[in-house]
């Protein structure tokens, strides 16, 4: 075994690996087959709605993992992760908008909203976005860079605890106001929508949707393993030390700045990737993704699942979002009551989340 595979295998126990393998088999084989291969009237046929919903929730689960890494393990609660998610989405959305080509309502080379603004050419920050690889670069770089710069200033002056949470909330709020402006060149209120194709494939085709779904599942697995690696290696112990007693860590001769900055930036990049996967599946990205409410909701996914347990974060995202789509279908007016109660009850009575309830081990 190479050192890499040894490290990989060492991340989880055999039983856990078996569970992960079963889940992946379900996501990567069973669900695509049930959707594509089985005829529509077959009892096991999976409709496009379920593939879409599951894809969406997996994107949220990636955000939850990213948030758990920074909150559950490092003790920094970010209320601005929606911003990184949306930035990743916008970066991919720029490519998707250009891939529409002349099929828009106005049949122009420019997206419809630019025609509407009477713009004659793309602004400079749209250059190269017709290349998919460049958009992918942006998906990683824009959230990463923003998180790095913001985090550097925030952690350097040792802003922590609720102050940090409030400042991140203000950041995403400011960004939302900015993106609402039409002349920013990102579609204002409506954002990007009406995508036609991605890398030449029709975006509404079942095959494309299934492929996106499978890519998301793989990305989620990769994110889980990467985060698991981070929290189980030495770095992870430093992170936990930052969470439990930052000043003591400093007296031991560590400078928490770079550790925090690394995990913060990594977390933001993960969110950006989740956003990039989310946009082609949902078909729209607009500034409301940056609203402070969305980011706080992400925090409750983690709290519901159980902080400091990466699998708990996934579980929480699935549980809350599953409940959300059920409620908004059946009792739309009661969803906010349910969500509000979840916030209160989980913080009061379930500090360790569902994982704690299931009798899992104490979080590291």
């Amino acid at each position, binding site marked *: 075994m190479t050192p890499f595979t040894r490290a990989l295998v060492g991340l989880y126990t055999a039983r856990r690996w078996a569970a992960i393998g079963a889940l992946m088999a379900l996501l990567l084989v069973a669900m695509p087959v049930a959707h594509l291969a089985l005829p529509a009237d077959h009892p096991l046929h999976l409709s496009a709605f379920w593939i879409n919903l599951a894809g969406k929730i997996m994107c949220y689960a990636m955000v939850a993992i990213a948030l758990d890494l920074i909150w559950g393990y490092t003790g920094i*609660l970010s209320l601005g992760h929606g911003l990184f998610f949306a930035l990743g989405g916008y970066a991919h959305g720029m490519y998707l908008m250009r891939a529409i080509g002349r099929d828009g309502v106005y049949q122009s080379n420019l997206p419809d909203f630019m025609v509407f603004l009477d713009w004659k050419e793309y602004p400079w920050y749209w250059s190269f976005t017709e290349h998919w690889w460049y958009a992918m670069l942006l998906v990683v770089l824009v959230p990463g860079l923003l998180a790095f710069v913001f985090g550097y200033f925030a952690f350097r002056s040792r802003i922590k605890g*609720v*102050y940090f949470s*409030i*400042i991140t909330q*203000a950041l995403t709020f400011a960004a939302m106001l900015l993106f609402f402006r039409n002349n920013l060149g990102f579609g204002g209120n409506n954002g990007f929508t009406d995508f036609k194709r991605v890398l030449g494939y029709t975006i509404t085709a079942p095959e494309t949707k299934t492929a996106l779904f499978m890519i998301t599942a793989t990305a989620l697995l990769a994110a889980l393993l990467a985060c698991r690696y981070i929290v189980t290696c030495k770095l992870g112990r430093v992170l936990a030390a930052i969470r439990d007693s930052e000043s003591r860590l400093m007296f031991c001769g560590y400078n928490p700045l770079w550790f925090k900055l690394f995990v913060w930036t990594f977390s933001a990049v993960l969110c950006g990737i989740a956003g990039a996967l989310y946009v082609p599946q949902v078909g729209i990205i607009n500034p409301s993704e940056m609203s402070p409410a969305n980011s706080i909701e992400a925090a409750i996914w983690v709290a519901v699942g159980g902080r400091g347990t990466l699998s708990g974060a996934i579980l929480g995202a699935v549980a809350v979002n599953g409940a959300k789509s059920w409620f908004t279908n059946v009792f739309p007016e009661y969803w906010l009551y349910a969500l509000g109660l979840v916030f209160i009850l989980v913080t009061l009575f379930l500090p360790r989340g569902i994982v704690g309830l299931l009798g899992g081990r104490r979080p590291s």
Partner: protein
Amino acid sequence: MKLLAAVMLAWALLAPRFAAAALDAPTVNRLAAEDTDEKIQAIARIAESAEPQALAVLQALADDVLYVLADGRVAIFAGERMHDAATGVEITPVPESRDAIAINNRVRREINTAIAALKLTAPERAIRLASARELQNSAEPELLPLIKRALEKEADPEIRAILALTEASASLKSGDPAVRLAAVRTLAASDNPGVKLLLSTMLEKTGDGNFNEPDAKVRDEIRAALKEIDARLSKLESVGNLFYGLSLGSVLLLAALGLAITFGLMGIINMAHGELLMIGAYATYSVQQAFKAWLPAHVDWYLAAAVPSAFLAAAAIGMVLERSVIRWLYGRPLETLLATWGISLLLIQTVRTLYGAQNVEVANPGWMSGGIALAGGLVLPWNRIFIIVFAALVLALVWLMLNRTRLGLFVRAVTQNRAMADCLGVPTRRVDTLTFGVGSGIAGLGGVALSQIGNVGPELGQQYIVDSFMVVVLGGVGQLAGTIIAAIGLGEVNKFLEPYAGAVLAKIAVLVFIILFIQKRPQGLFALKGRSAEA
């Protein structure tokens, strides 16, 4: 004999009035003349007579409802009834044969001038004012004598000012450079926004390369006048910005003051604070509706009842929250944040269920509409002034509560050293609940103020939560002075940036500024000194 004397006396008394009320019939009849010049002469005579009936006749002529009858009399025929133009006596039945008096554009112009002149000397102030305003926008040199005459008679200062300005703008078109020079000097002192445009067009060149104003000396005077006006306008703009900044600052202060107590003094992150504002606003709405239903005569004073109701409603909800949820989360600020966010969702949805998702209408009381008009079209609305005064009052009450009451003493004691206060017999648990109640109640008061200047809807609180936290963070924890300075400062900075950057960019600039500011001073403007600072 006596009877005769009485009749004679009555006649003597009434006759001149009849004569005054009636126009000279031959003159009126000349309006029907074929010749335009004769018509114009008649119009001028009628206008000079300044009889009350004159305006009606000329207006009828302008509106094409003046008719000439078969016997040569002229009559006004409007709305199925006919009156003799000269005497005002009704003519019944309406004669079949009648001809409308036609007028051409030249006559029409004369009529308009004459009507304006008549209105300018009308006995009712409102008519004179309206007419003066109308003339101001169409000042022609031929109206000058008329305006001058009106100016001589006019006593009302507001109308006089308008007339003087109109006279000056009309004089600008005069052929005499000296008259124009004098006019420019008069205009330089005016605050009318149109004057600037008027003067600057005089400096422009016409198609053939000449200036609109041929005289170089007058042009220099115009340039000086424009500079003077610009200086005055920018000063005025600063005053306006200062005022609106202060008013925005007061709104922020009212929104953040309660938070400064719950977060600053008690260390509770209350994300439902915005919803307490919203509850205050809805309490105001409910009181308003109650007044409308049961005390419609006193509806203008509903605010007097709304202020205590809003305070009590928000304070009661706040205390229930403290007892039921927040108490169990002391010392765990991040959990408090999430739980209170959950509470805010519950409150929003409850209000939606009770009052509907639409905005409700809270009307300003009558005494709050309008404002103080300053020179130069700057108006300071009463509702904004109310908010500034209200914020100052609330602030004074909070200060008194914290520094002059037993509860305030306890609050400060618990803030400084909870264990020691407990040992000395301070009921810390009850103090917590009461303090949280006071902080929530103040949010309710903020809601009353917000209901007077903006929409009241279930999402009202969400707009203010980020701003209020920014104020508290910027001001520093546990310090009222910091909160005040931060709120007013943010309000002013916002309003002064707005003209350059627009409202949204100004807001973003302020947020970026705060993020940079707490780099330098992580504890806010006024940091607590001593041991509690790092807690």
